[in-house]
């Protein structure tokens, strides 16, 4: 990097520029996360006026009641399913974008694919409600086309939650896979082909291994937020939409058992960190 300027000065010159940003992050992110860990070991929230002591009870609640563990597993399964669907749908799209389309049409379509991703997630989830409900667009359209009568009422079901989440997160997968696929030299693919490898062999032996960092990055970026999702299951899942995230939400906005909510959040954070740590060796190869 800027070796010439770098040697001149160090932390002392950097500090005034860095301090405001990092102080802000400390106050609004790092201290709250530490506080959450701290509060998760308390019986009551301090400052609430009630006496409090340290306890392991909040964690004991997680391990003694199978409900929480079941919901955590359900959320992990949801994360896994959504991630797999995103790979199945997103990877081929990334491939077409990176290797088939050229020039301006590639640029335009790439932008179109990732554009919804940067619009409001809540609103996009809500938009599915109109499509999936009974008497909704999907129902009406299919009944207009099909000769027999069917009832499509996917609203408030597990598939609805999956559809909504895949719709929300698939652009991530397209983005990360596209970036790695684009970096693959076309001559590598041609070399494989001219040496007698079939298309499938080239895909398996050359393209997929080389695009692995993108796949893993996409998977991590999707899996982590999906496991912690609560708004999507609430809107599209209705009564079937109870997951680990919705239980945490309840502790804070309905039940007001903050220490338990903190413990549940921290357990989720631990799970998330383990997953990110597991993904990082593959991601480091990219750098």
């Amino acid at each position, binding site marked *: 990097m*800027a*070796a010439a300027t770098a040697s001149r000065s160090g932390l002392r010159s*950097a500090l005034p520029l*860095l301090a*405001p*940003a990092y102080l*802000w*992050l400390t*106050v609004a*992110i*790092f201290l*709250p*996360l530490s*506080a*959450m860990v701290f*509060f998760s070991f308390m019986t009551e*929230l301090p*400052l609430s006026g009630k006496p409090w002591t340290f306890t392991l009870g909040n964690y004991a609640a997680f391990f003694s009641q199978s409900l929480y563990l079941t919901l955590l597993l359900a959320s992990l399964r949801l994360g896994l399913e959504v991630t797999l669907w995103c790979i199945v*749908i997103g990877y*081929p*799209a990334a491939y*077409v*974008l990176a290797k*088939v389309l050229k020039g301006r049409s590639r640029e335009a*379509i*790439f*932008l*179109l*694919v990732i*554009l919804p991703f*940067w*619009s*409001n*997630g*809540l*609103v*996009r989830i*809500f*938009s599915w*409600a*109109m*499509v999936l*409900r009974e*008497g*909704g667009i999907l129902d009406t359209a299919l009944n207009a086309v099909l000769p027999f009568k069917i009832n499509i009422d996917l609203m408030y079901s597990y598939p609805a939650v999956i559809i909504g989440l895949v719709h929300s997160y698939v652009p991530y997968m397209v*983005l990360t896979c596209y970036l790695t696929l*684009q970096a693959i030299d076309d001559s590598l693919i041609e070399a494989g082909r001219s040496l007698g490898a079939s298309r499938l062999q080239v895909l398996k032996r050359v393209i997929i291994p080389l695009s692995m960092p993108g796949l893993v990055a996409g998977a*991590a970026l999707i899996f*982590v*937020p999906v496991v*912690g999702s609560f*708004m999507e299951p609430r809107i599209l899942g209705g009564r079937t939409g109870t997951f680990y*995230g919705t239980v*945490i939400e309840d502790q*804070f906005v309905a039940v007001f058992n903050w220490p338990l*909510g*903190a413990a549940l*959040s921290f357990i*989720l*954070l631990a799970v998330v960190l383990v997953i990110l740590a597991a993904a990082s060796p593959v991601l480091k190869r990219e750098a």
Partner: protein
Amino acid sequence: MATTRILEWLGRLYISVLLAFLYLPIIIMALMSFNVSPFYQLPFEWTTEWYASLWQNDQLIAATWNSVEIAVIATVICTVLGSAASLALYRYEFRGKKFLQALLFPPIAIPWLITGTAMLIFFFGVGIGRGLHAILLGHVALALPYVIVVVSARLQTFAPELEEAARSLGANQWQVTWRVTLPWIMPGVIAGGLFAFAVSFDQFVVSYFLATPGQTTLPVEIYAAIRKGFTPEINAVSTIIIVVSMALMLLTARFFKFGGEK
């Protein structure tokens, strides 16, 4: 080469199907916001009644203003603090720099549910409390890492010799920064600012935990409305939001290439 052409054709077809999947629900939502039937019944009959009734909904209008205000203030704070930090990370070598750069990723990677609830606990515990100021505090923290990453990416394309040249021609540190470096990274700063605006304006989860009745943002208000029951009014306001945020991102794309295109 016939197979190649068929495969290419299939690829294009596939992308079209994906685009349909991505845009269909949004388009349907937009259409329904102009439909007479409040229960989204077909046949379609045109009306702008739902948009008109939005103007009567004081709660939604107040929440919209809150959202805009917070997003604008957060954008200004983020671009200033973020650009300064990026500049420092680019210009100087010091111990712990790698650590500081690594610290930018937890805010991006940790689910907002966890960050949001942690903020709620901490802000409540230390007396900052809830409300618009707490939401602003949170939004800036969420958007700041994005700004630093985007501006840093732009700085990577900067030639340090330019600073050297300016300095050897007698410019002081301020002049170098103001006249040479800043104009060069401006596209990155603008893109970062637009990112920050989008992150703040679209933010739901963190705002949700930090909002109080009367001090909410638009997404929080919409979520509450959805849980009470769907109405075309929500479609109308949602359509406006989608159009605004997509326009913003198109604007961002003009300043900043996402795809790493050559």
